[in-house]
C-alpha cells in the first residue's frame, strides 16, 4: 500500500519531471513527440479534475443539507443552479447534447448573460469601493518613503485618466516613466526571486524531497 501511496507517485514525479526538463533541450522528433503526448495527457487530466471539483462541491453541500447546518438553504440553491445549468446545457437550445454547443442563444446563454455576468461583474465592482476606503485609511505619509509612494500613486492615478492630460502633459509622461522604470525594476527583482523559488521547489518535488503535495507526513 505504501508503494502505491508514496513510492509510485514519487517515482512518476521523478521520471516525468526529469523528462520534461530534458525534452526542452532535445530537438529530436522523438523528444518533441513525447512532449506533445505528455501535454495531451495533462489536458485530459485537467478535464477530469473538473469532475473531481464538481463531486467535492456537491458532496459538501449535500452534507450541509442533510445535517441542516446553518445556511443550508443556500446549499439547496447550489443544487438548483447546478441542475438547471446542466439541463439547459443538455437541452442545447433544442439541438440536444450530441450537437456542438450553441453559444449565442438558448436558456443556457440567457442564464449566463443575465445571472452570472451581472453577479460576477458586481463582485468585481465592489473593489472600487474597497480600494477607496483602504486608500483613505492607510495611505498616510508617515515616513519619507511613504510620502514618495503617496506622490507616485497620485501621479499614476492622474496619469492613467484623461484628467491628467488636462492638468499637464507632464503627468502622463511621468506616470509612464514610473511604470517603465522604477516599477519595472521592482517587478523584475521580485520575478527573479520568485523564479528561483520555483526552480528550488520544482527540484524538491522532482527529487522527492518535497512531499506535501501527496498529502501530509513524510
Amino acid at each position: 500500500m505504501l508503494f502505491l501511496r508514496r513510492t509510485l507517485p514519487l517515482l512518476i514525479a521523478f521520471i516525468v519531471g526529469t523528462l520534461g526538463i530534458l525534452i526542452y533541450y532535445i530537438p529530436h522528433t522523438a523528444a518533441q513527440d513525447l512532449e506533445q503526448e505528455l501535454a495531451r495527457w495533462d489536458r485530459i487530466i485537467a478535464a477530469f479534475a473538473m469532475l473531481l471539483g464538481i463531486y467535492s462541491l456537491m458532496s459538501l453541500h449535500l452534507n450541509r443539507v442533510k445535517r441542516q447546518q446553518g445556511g443550508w438553504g443556500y446549499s439547496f440553491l447550489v443544487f438548483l443552479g447546478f441542475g438547471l445549468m446542466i439541463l439547459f446545457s443538455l437541452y442545447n437550445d433544442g439541438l440536444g447534447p450530441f450537437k456542438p454547443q450553441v453559444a449565442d442563444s438558448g436558456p443556457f446563454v440567457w442564464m449566463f448573460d443575465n445571472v452570472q455576468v451581472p453577479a460576477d461583474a458586481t463582485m468585481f465592482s465592489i473593489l472600487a469601493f474597497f480600494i477607496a476606503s483602504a486608500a483613505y485609511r492607510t495611505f498616510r505619509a508617515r515616513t519619507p518613503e511613504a510620502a514618495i509612494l503617496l506622490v507616485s500613486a497620485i501621479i499614476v492615478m492622474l496619469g492613467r485618466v484623461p484628467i491628467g492630460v488636462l492638468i499637464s502633459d507632464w503627468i502622463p509622461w511621468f506616470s509612464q516613466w514610473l511604470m517603465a522604470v522604477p516599477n519595472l525594476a521592482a517587478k523584475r527583482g521580485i520575478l527573479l526571486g520568485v523564479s528561483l523559488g520555483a526552480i528550488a521547489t520544482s527540484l524538491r518535488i522532482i527529487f522527492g524531497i518535497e512531499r506535501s503535495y501527496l498529502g501530509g507526513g513524510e
Partner: protein
Amino acid sequence: MRYILLCLTLLFCMCPVQAQQPTQIQTMDTPNDAGGSITLTWNRADLPPKSVYKIAIGESPNGPFYLATELPTTANLMSDDPATFGHGDETAQTHFFNITEYQDTNNTEKPLKLETDKTYYVQITTQLPNGQMLPSNISPATAIQNLFNKTKINNFILGTVFSLIILIAIYMARRHEMYIRRIAGLEALDEALGRATEMGKPVFFAHGLHPMGSVSTIAAVNILSRIARRTAEFNTELKVANNDPIVMAVSREVVKESYLNAGRPDAYNDDMVFLAATEQFSYAAAVDGMMVRERPAANIMMGYFYAESLLLAETGANIGAIQIAGTDSYTQLPFFITTCDYTLMGEELYAASAYLSREPKLMGSLKGMDVGKAFLLLTLVLGTLLATMGNQTLAHIFTAY
C-alpha cells in the same frame, strides 16, 4: 609582348568574374533542429546592385536541380542569426540560408519538404544584372535530427549549476544549522493565534487561487501545517476555506496530520477544511460572508491571489481581525500592504515555510536560492558595467535564444 598583354587583359577581366562567384561555400545539416533542413553558407561578395543569388537543390549530383529560393545579395547574413552563428565579426561577411523545401515543378505544385537522413546536392548561382549566371560548385549535405539544442547551452549550464547549488545546500542543511533572518510577519503569527485563543474566535486561513502544482500553494500548505499544529496545541478553532478540490484534499490531510502530531486527533473534523467555491468571486463572496458572520480574530492569507485579495483583506480589516498575508503575486501586494498588519512579499512566502518548520530541506533550498540571487546580482552589476563600456560578452552569455 602582345601575348603578355593579352594574357594580362584576360586575367584582369576574369578576376572580377571569379570574385563574383559564390566562394567558401559550406553545406551542412542545420544545427539544433529535428531534421528536414540543410544550411548553406558562403562569403559575402561585392556585387553590382540588383544581383541575386539563386539556390538550387537536387537529389543527385548530376541533377535535375530545382530552385529552392532567390535571395538579394544583401540578405541573410550570419549576423542576423547570432543564436546559431555567434557574434563574431566574420558573421557580417558571410551569408547563410536554411533549405527546408523546394519546388519540383515537374511533378507537383506543392513544395517538397526535405527528408531527414537523405543526401541532397546544392548549388548557388550568382545572377548579375546583365543576366550573366555564375554557378558555384555542387556541394552535398544531409539533414539529420540533432540530440541537443546548442542555442540553449547557456540555459542548460545555468540551470544545472543552480540545481546543483540548491541540492548541495539541502545536503549541507541536513548537517549544519543554517541562519535565517527574522521575518516580522511570522514572528507575529504566534501573537495572532494567541489573540484568537483569548477571544475564543476562530483562525481563518486562505491558500489563494492557484492549484496544487503552484509553488506558492505548496508553500502555503507547508505554513498551514505549522499553523494547524499551533491551533491544535492552543485548542483554537481553525477554518480553512479552499477554492480548489485537490488543494482541499491535500489541506485536509495536512491538517489532520498536524492535529495527530500535536496529540489532538479528537479535535480535528473534516468541516474545518472546506470548499467555499470554485469560482473566484463566488469564493470571495462566500469567504466574506463567513468572515462577517463568524468574525475570526486572525486572518492568514498565504498563496497566490488575484482581485479577490482586496475583498478578503478589506473585509477582514473591517471586522478587526489581525491579518497576516503572504503572496508572490506582485499585483496584489499593494492591497495586502495597505489592509494587513503584516505582509510577506515574494520569496518571503517561500522562506516562511522554512522559517516556521526549520526543516533542512526547506532551509537548504532557501540558502541555495540566496546563493543563486547573489550570483544574479553580481552578474547584473558586472553586465551593466561591461555593457556601458561597450562590451556585450556577459549580455550575450545570458541571452535566451
